[in-house]
């Protein structure tokens, strides 16, 4: 079978260029992950998950049939032309390249305004209750505190545990309006290398540390609106909501 991808993130394209082979790491209903030897990851999946910097977007039909042939551990050939599995190909020749630029410092007032209307009540009784989050955020600004993100990394269910999505949100606000002490960013990078969360989450946070975020997040800064908030919340089963909570708590920190 030959299938067409509809979009490819710039990070994914770089990985496809730099590697010859990648391994099928995991398979879900909406997509699958391939990794290289250093565990750099490409997520191949349907648009339901939004465009990822390390994502290749395929349609539902492609995923439905690709799944028939995929197994964890399969080796695929990769190049800028696409992904070449022994039983099917995903071609990139008619694909939109989605570029991801580093988020530059900017004003957060408008984002704060649109985010504040959103309902975050469900977090009050969770592991991520507001006081706990405030405590973490305070500590992040203080270079002498002990590594505060340990509590959040890998906490929660799913492909990207909730705590990790919140970290992405926190890092997004930090990219716009830096407040986190360098010490803690370095600790986060080295803590991640100890396999403390899922490989997908790990890749998200690593990129966030470099100032690169998925388009649904950056859309919020580029066009702060109710629609942008709603699009972010719709991401994944709870990922978008968790990310937004991270953003909200950070913008409203003491």
């Amino acid at each position, binding site marked *: 079978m030959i299938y067409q991808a509809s979009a490819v993130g710039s990070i994914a394209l770089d990985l496809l260029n730099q590697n010859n082979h990648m391994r099928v790491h995991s398979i879900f209903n909406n997509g699958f992950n391939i990794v290289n030897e250093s565990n750099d990851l490409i997520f191949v999946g349907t648009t339901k998950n939004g465009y990822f910097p390390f994502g290749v977007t395929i349609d*539902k039909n492609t995923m439905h049939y690709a799944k*028939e042939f995929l197994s964890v551990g399969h080796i695929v050939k990769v190049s800028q032309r696409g992904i070449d599995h022994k039983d099917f*190909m995903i071609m990139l020749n008619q694909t939109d390249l989605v570029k991801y630029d580093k988020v530059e410092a900017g004003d957060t007032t408008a984002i704060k305004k649109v985010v504040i209307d959103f309902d975050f009540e469900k977090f009050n009784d969770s592991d991520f209750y507001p006081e706990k989050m405030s405590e973490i955020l305070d500590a992040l600004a203080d270079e002498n505190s002990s590594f505060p993100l340990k*509590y959040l990394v890998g906490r*929660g269910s799913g492909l990207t545990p909730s705590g990790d999505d919140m970290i992405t949100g926190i890092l997004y606000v930090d990219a716009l309006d830096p407040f986190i002490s360098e010490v803690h960013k370095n600790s986060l990078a080295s803590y991640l290398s100890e396999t403390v969360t*899922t490989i997908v989450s790990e890749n998200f946070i690593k990129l966030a540390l470099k100032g690169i975020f998925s388009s649904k997040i950056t859309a919020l800064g580029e066009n702060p609106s109710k629609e942008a908030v709603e699009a972010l919340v719709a991401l994944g089963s709870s990922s978008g909501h968790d990310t937004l909570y991270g953003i909200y708590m950070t913008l409203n920190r003491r």
Partner: protein
Amino acid sequence: MLYTIIKGNTYQDSIVLMLLSQKLSAMEGVNKASVMMGTPANKDIFKGSGLGTPELEDASANDIVIVIDTDDESKVDEVDQEVETELAGGSGSDDSQKSSEAHNWKRALELANNPNLALISIPGTYAAMEAENALRNGLHVFMFSDNVPKEDEVRLKELAHEKGLFVMGPDCGTGIIHSVPLAFTNTVAQGDIGVVGASGTGIQEVTTIVDRMGKGVTNAIGTGGRDLSTEVGAITMLDSIKALNQDPKVKVITVISKPPAKEVQEKVESVLRSIDKPVVALFLGAKPEYQEDAIYHAYTLEEAAVASVQLSNGETVDFKPSIIEGLSVDFDANQKGIKAYYSGGTLASEAAMMIRHSLGEEEVKDEGFTYKSTSHEVIDLGDDMYTQGKPHPMIDPEKRIEKLETSADSEDTAVIMLDNVIGYGSHADMASELAPTIKRITDKAKSEERSLVVLATVVGTDKDAQGYDKQRQILEEAGAVLCDTNDQMVRTAIELVGGKVEQPILETKNFDKGSEDLSVDEKMMSLISNNPSVINIGLKSFTEAVENSGAEVVQFNWRPVAGGDEKLMKVLQFLNNYEGENV
């Protein structure tokens, strides 16, 4: 007592894991259960909630961990089973390399045991090339693939006819060859009715009604929708009719098609008039104008099925259409509309025809509608227009759910119709996918004291994996009114909005017996008289049906040569088949 299950390198969306936690906790004999990724932070959560175990330390961040608190050790296996089933939806189990899989023609032909049929479902651009390769290797061809150019179809069918082979398709969704179901097909009892049809769901509707009436169909040969066009000239249909005529096990021949071009219809009827077996013909879309001794002309799919059964029983055809009686409705003055959302194209065409012939509203031509007028609409959601980048509506309920919701909210809607085509290739439980929406819209109408009738019909048999009765029951419990056939459903809908479908009353006309050559190639007879030995090129899921019915199949995991470069592929194809001029 705490038990730990670790599923290495496995993921699921968080919602799936949360639902799974709830489901496991609700199991009888389980005090508590939790499912999470094995990250250090989550291990702390396990410990904090009294579910800490020493085994937890073995789990890594990329594993799914399940901790169960139960006093009954046997529950652990049960939980494990449940988890496996739930996770199977995502990360497929690994049984990839079966010995009977090939990557090229040579290997496929080696692995197969006297193969005589290629089942092709690769993209249309490449399907014609592989069909030609199959024919040159002496195989009959069943082409599920669509988007094959018409000139290729003509060329392939001429080549096939010359070689004494069948080309079923392209765009052939359904077929039964010697009781082996191909592609989207129901499991139907064997029997003495032979079917040949140019429409997929038309064949499914007729063969399943025949089955439910206690008779059977051993061969239902699909021709593809363009076989009866002027250019193709019904090559496959004519060969199929002749083959069914030669088969001593066939007592009645049933032919289903859209109304073809006049000269093609004459050609087909001339062959039909030459044979001695009773024939039922349905050119769906037109009202038959006469009856004749040799051919029973039917108006609807159900009529064709009933006529076939009666003829096979040696009876005179006597079709009595029916409707669902006793539905009490009180529509508002502006509630006049029938809205139909089909997954089966031929069923949609049948509904469109019956509404067109009986309700007399002016038809509005609109792409995307099988029928549209001021009050009514019939949509085939399997049409290319709705399936771009999406699985077919027989697999994916999304589009239908959307349509059900919007039409139920529309003030002019009186009756909604839908089909549920089960069998191989279809969704494992479409009724349960549609049921919540049906329930919601019927409940809502009730609460607003508004009459709204949802009619549904299930196309299938009790031998289909989804279960005919079970699918009906689920839809019925959700609030739908179940009809036995599409014919019954459409007649019921039309009567509910104040119309009536008139069954044509016909004079019998006399024709001279035809004198066509009825001989067929031995290879064609062999195909319909024995279990086929199949090479499946493309969708792996099609092998299941073939295997389950006891026939042999080799999976050909096709991939394009020349890296998918179409031009280069055509050059190679030409070179491979170039025979040169003999001097």
